[in-house]
């Protein structure tokens, strides 16, 4: 008797999981907010992801950064650059077949910009030189990759951990050479 009850429970669980996975898979869109970046880095980062099929998805994320500590470090010369924004189109490939929870890899581009500082020599009106800090803006394009893990609750709320990095390509005498791509996203799938 116990054996039959156990088997019935397993079967129920399995069909329930199947049903849950199929409900999730039927929802093709997701919006996300990065909780970790907001708390740790003062960066407000939102994403949209479109699921093309069970393996691939594409999306775009954007972030603005406004951290008082980072601004202070930049002003005091501890950091050469102060990232302000990024726009990241991405493509993802799911490594596991479950729609409820799975690992994925991501390739992304990042159009990013902010402020940078450098010490320059100027001449004053009396033709004497002096060194002073000059601030200016930078923009650059980075390419990068990341790995992540995604988990769904109640077939619509997603929790996603992602870690990776990108490398700026064109303007690294002013922009940061490496940009981190780290987040803990809380999402809603619909």
């Amino acid at each position, binding site marked *: 008797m116990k054996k039959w009850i156990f088997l019935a429970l397993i079967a129920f669980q399995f069909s329930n999981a199947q049903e849950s996975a199929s409900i999730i898979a039927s929802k093709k869109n997701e919006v996300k907010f990065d909780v*970790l970046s907001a708390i*740790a*880095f003062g960066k407000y980062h939102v994403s949209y992801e479109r699921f093309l099929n069970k393996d691939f998805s594409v999306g775009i994320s954007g972030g603005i950064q406004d951290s008082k500590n980072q601004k202070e*470090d930049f*002003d*005091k*010369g*501890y*950091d*050469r*650059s102060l990232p302000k924004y990024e726009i990241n189109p991405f493509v993802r490939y799911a490594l596991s077949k479950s729609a409820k929870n799975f*690992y994925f890899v991501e390739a992304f581009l990042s159009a990013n910009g902010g402020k940078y*500082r*450098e*010490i320059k*020599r100027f*001449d*004053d009106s009396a*033709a*004497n*030189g*002096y*060194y*002073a*800090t000059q601030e200016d803006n930078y923009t650059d394009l980075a390419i990068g990759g990341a*790995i*992540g*893990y995604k*988990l769904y609750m109640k077939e619509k709320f997603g929790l996603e*951990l*992602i*870690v*990776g*990095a990108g490398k700026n390509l064109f303007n690294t005498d002013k922009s*940061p050479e*490496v*940009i*981190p791509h*780290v*987040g*803990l996203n809380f999402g809603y799938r619909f």
Partner: protein
Amino acid sequence: MKNIKLLFLAIVAIASFSSCGDDDEFYNSKYISIPDLIKVEHQPAYAVGNVLWVNTNFSKFLAEPGQTTPLDIFKTTNGASFSFSYGLEKKNADNSWTIVDLENKMIENQGNIFDGSYNIAECIFNPATETYQFRAGIPLEQAGSYRIFFGFTDASRLELASNNDSEKSTYLNIKTTVNNSTDGFYYFTVE
């Protein structure tokens, strides 16, 4: 669950790494080289009871190699003073050198001296002459062979560093040399 923990640890590690990426360097500093800004008041011979003086007396306008205009170091540092370090060593019988502790022995004449095994000399700006002035003497109390070392570790570290009031102004480090020195040391004998 284990995988989530591992991934979370990886995130924390990369986040820590990325957040301190630029911190190894300090971007408000400027390094330049201008020779002969520190002087030893050289005498042909020294005797017990003499004083060996070290001084600076350089203008706020310095000729910077490679530049066509003089460098205004006062304006660059927003009026900061400049410091350098030096000390005295005595030669032992086995030809090794021992640092002589000069705490409370140095004679301050211009600027400030913070004495000890390593002396920190502070060159103060004199608005009347528009020069950075420092002068302090080492009383020579015992006969022997001596040398003065400059910088904390070796001669290559001999630099005048600005003592900025504000972290937001430019820190200027001037690598310089001393007159009558050999490999960064000033050698002399006290009879």
